[in-house]
C-alpha cells in the first residue's frame, strides 16, 4: 500500500502526533488505539507524548474520527485529527456546515488502505482530501460504477413491498440514536429529536416514532451524506439505514447531475440552496 507498510504508517502517525502535541497548540490527537480484542480498535485521544505511542494503524481502524472535533465547539487549542479519506470528508462536511473552524483543526491525513468494514468496498476517496500533513503516497482512486446498484434493485420492489420491509426494520430499531451520533452530517447544535416535547418526536421505540425519526434523519442528512457508512456500522440492530441516504443521493444525481459530498470545494447542500435552473417539473 502506497509504498509504506502498515507498521511504517503507524510509526509515522505516532511521530506526527508527537510533533503536533509538541507545538503546544494542540490539545489532543484523535486516532485509534487497541482494545482487548485483536479485531477491534477504539477511538483514542492521545494527550501526552507517551500516549501517542498507543495510537495504532491496522485494518480494524474503522471508527470515524472526524466527528470528535465537534466535542468542543469553542476550543482553546486546536484538535488534531488522524484522517483517512472518509474522515477528511467528514471534516469538510462540518466545515461546510459551519460547525467547525478550519483554524481549530490540525489534520493528519493518512492514505487509507481499506478497512474491515463493509462500506470500504465502494470507497472512492482513500486519499484524504483536506489535510495539514499527509502520511503515505496518494493511491489511484477507484470509481465505483456500482455506487447505486443496491438502490436500483430496491427501487424495483412495489411500494407495498418496500413499506413492509422498512416497517419490519423499524420495528427492530431501539431508538438509541447511535446512527445520529456517529454521523458527521448530524452536526446540529441541538438535534430536533432532543428538543423538549416537540409533540411529534419522542423517545418511544414504537413503530410510529421510530419511522418518523428514520424519515426525518434521512431527509436531514440525505443531501449532505458523505457516504462513510458510520450510521449503518454503529446500528446495534443492523438496520440498513444507508439505503435511505443513498436513495436521496441517487435521486439528487439523477435530477441535478454528479453530486458527491465532503469534497474540499463542496457546493452548498443541494436541498439547502436554490438556483433558477433547478429542475422543477414536480411543481
Amino acid at each position, binding site marked *: 500500500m502506497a509504498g509504506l507498510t502498515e507498521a511504517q504508517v503507524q510509526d509515522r502517525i505516532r511521530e506526527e502526533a508527537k510533533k503536533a502535541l509538541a507545538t503546544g497548540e494542540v490539545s489532543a490527537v484523535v486516532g485509534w488505539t487497541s*482494545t482487548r480484542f485483536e479485531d477491534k480498535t477504539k*477511538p483514542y485521544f492521545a494527550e501526552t507524548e507517551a500516549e501517542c505511542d498507543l495510537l495504532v494503524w491496522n485494518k480494524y481502524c474503522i471508527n470515524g474520527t472526524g466527528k470528535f472535533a465537534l466535542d468542543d465547539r469553542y476550543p482553546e487549542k486546536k484538535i488534531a485529527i488522524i484522517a483517512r479519506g472518509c474522515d477528511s470528508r467528514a471534516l469538510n462536511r462540518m466545515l461546510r456546515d459551519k460547525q467547525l473552524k478550519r483554524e481549530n483543526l490540525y489534520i493528519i491525513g493518512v492514505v487509507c488502505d481499506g478497512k474491515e468494514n463493509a462500506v470500504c468496498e465502494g470507497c472512492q476517496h482513500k486519499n484524504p482530501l483536506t489535510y495539514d500533513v499527509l502520511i503515505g503516497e496518494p493511491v489511484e482512486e477507484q470509481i465505483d460504477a456500482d455506487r447505486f446498484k443496491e438502490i436500483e434493485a430496491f427501487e424495483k420492489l412495489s411500494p407495498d413491498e418496500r413499506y413492509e420491509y422498512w416497517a419490519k426494520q423499524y420495528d427492530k430499531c*431501539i431508538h438509541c440514536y447511535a446512527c445520529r451520533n456517529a454521523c458527521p452530517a448530524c452536526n446540529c447544535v441541538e438535534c430536533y429529536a432532543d428538543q423538549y416535547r416537540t409533540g411529534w418526536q*419522542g423517545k418511544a421505540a414504537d413503530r410510529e416514532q421510530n419511522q418518523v425519526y428514520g424519515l426525518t434523519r434521512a431527509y436531514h442528512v440525505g443531501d449532505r451524506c458523505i457516504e462513510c457508512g458510520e450510521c449503518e456500522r454503529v446500528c446495534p440492530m443492523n438496520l440498513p439505514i444507508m439505503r435511505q441516504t443513498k436513495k436521496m443521493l441517487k435521486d439528487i444525481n439523477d435530477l441535478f447531475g454528479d453530486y458527491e459530498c465532503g469534497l474540499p470545494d463542496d457546493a452548498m447542500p443541494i436541498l439547502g440552496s436554490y438556483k433558477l435552473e433547478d429542475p422543477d417539473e414536480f411543481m
Partner: protein
Amino acid sequence: MKLAKKDLNKALEILSAGAIVFAPTFEMIEDKSEGGQTMAEKKFMPYKEGMFIALDGPNTVKPPKDILFPNVEKMYRYKTGVNAEIQEIIPEDTKKILFGIRPCDMRSIDSMDKVFLTKEYVDSYYAKRRENVVTVAFGCTEPERTCFCDSMGIDPNNAPSADVMMNVAKGSNGDAFILEAYTDKGKELLEQIKSLDGGAGEAQRDTKCQLQINKDPELDKKLAGMFEHPIWDKITKGCIGCGTCTFVCPTCYCFDIDNENYGAEGCKYRCWDSCMFSDYTRMAGGANPRPTKKERLRNRYMHKLSYFNERYGETLCVGCGRCVANCPSHLDISEFIEKATAADPNAETYTDAPGKEA
C-alpha cells in the same frame, strides 16, 4: 426431569396452551430486492408451531427485559375539554413463560424486582407483568468472548432465582436437558410437560466465561471515593453518547414519561430513557448538571458498579457483555473495571501510558 432435545418443540407446544411462551429464536427479514439477503436477528419471540429454538450460541442483542418492562408502556388515556376524563390502562392478565433466559439475564430480573417492587414502592405495571411470568433459565454452554458474568459473581451454569433451571444433560452431547424446579411455579410448569420426562440424569455445569477480569471485590466502595478522579476524563473521550449501551443492558431501568396527543385526546406513556442522552438531566430552564459525556458515562459506570450496591447491596452490572459487544466506539466496561481496580484512588493525574511520563 430429563427432556430430549427432539421433544423441545413438543414441550413448548404444550406450555403454549396456557401461556405465551417467549423463547430465543431468529427473526428473518427478507429483502426481496435483487441480490438481497435475509437478515436474521436473535431475539425472544412468542413461540409459534415449529419455531427454531436457539438456546445455545450467543445471547440475544436485546435483553428479555422488555417482557417485564416494555420499551413503551401506555399508562392512561385522557380526554381534555368539557368531556375531560382519564382512563387507566392496566397491563393484560396474560400468563407468560420466559424460556431459555441466561443466568445473567435472570439475575438482571432480580435487580429489576428490587427496583420496581421494594423500598416501599410497588410499580403496579411491573408488578402485574412480573406476577404473570414464569422463568425457565438455561445454563450457558458457549459463552461469548465478551461474557464476564462469573467475574461479577454470577454462575453461568445456574440461576438460583429462576422458577426452573435447565442444563444440558451430562454425557448427552447437547441432545438432552435436565430441568429442575426451584419454586412452586416451576413445579407446576414441569408437571404440565411430565409426559415428556425421560427419567433422571445429571446436569452438566462446568461452563466458565472466556473473559476473566481482575476486579477489586470492594470496587463499589473504592469507586464511591473516586467521583472526581482524573480517570473519568480519559476513559470517556471516545464515547459518542448514544443510548446503545443502556438499551441493550438487561439491568437499565430508567424511563421517561411523555404524551401522545390527537386533538382533544391523548395518552400518557413511559418509555426507556438513557443517562447517556444529553436531555436526561436537562432541566426546564436548560441547565444541565451532566453537561458532557464525561459526567454521563461516569454516571452509568457508577450506577452499575457503585450506587446500586450502596442502595441494594448488589452490583447492577451482571457481566452479560452486551454493551461491550455493541458499543459503536468499542468502549468496554470490563476494561474500565480493571483500570479502576488498578488505579490509585488519590491520584491527581491519570494516563493510559503510565511509567513513561516525564
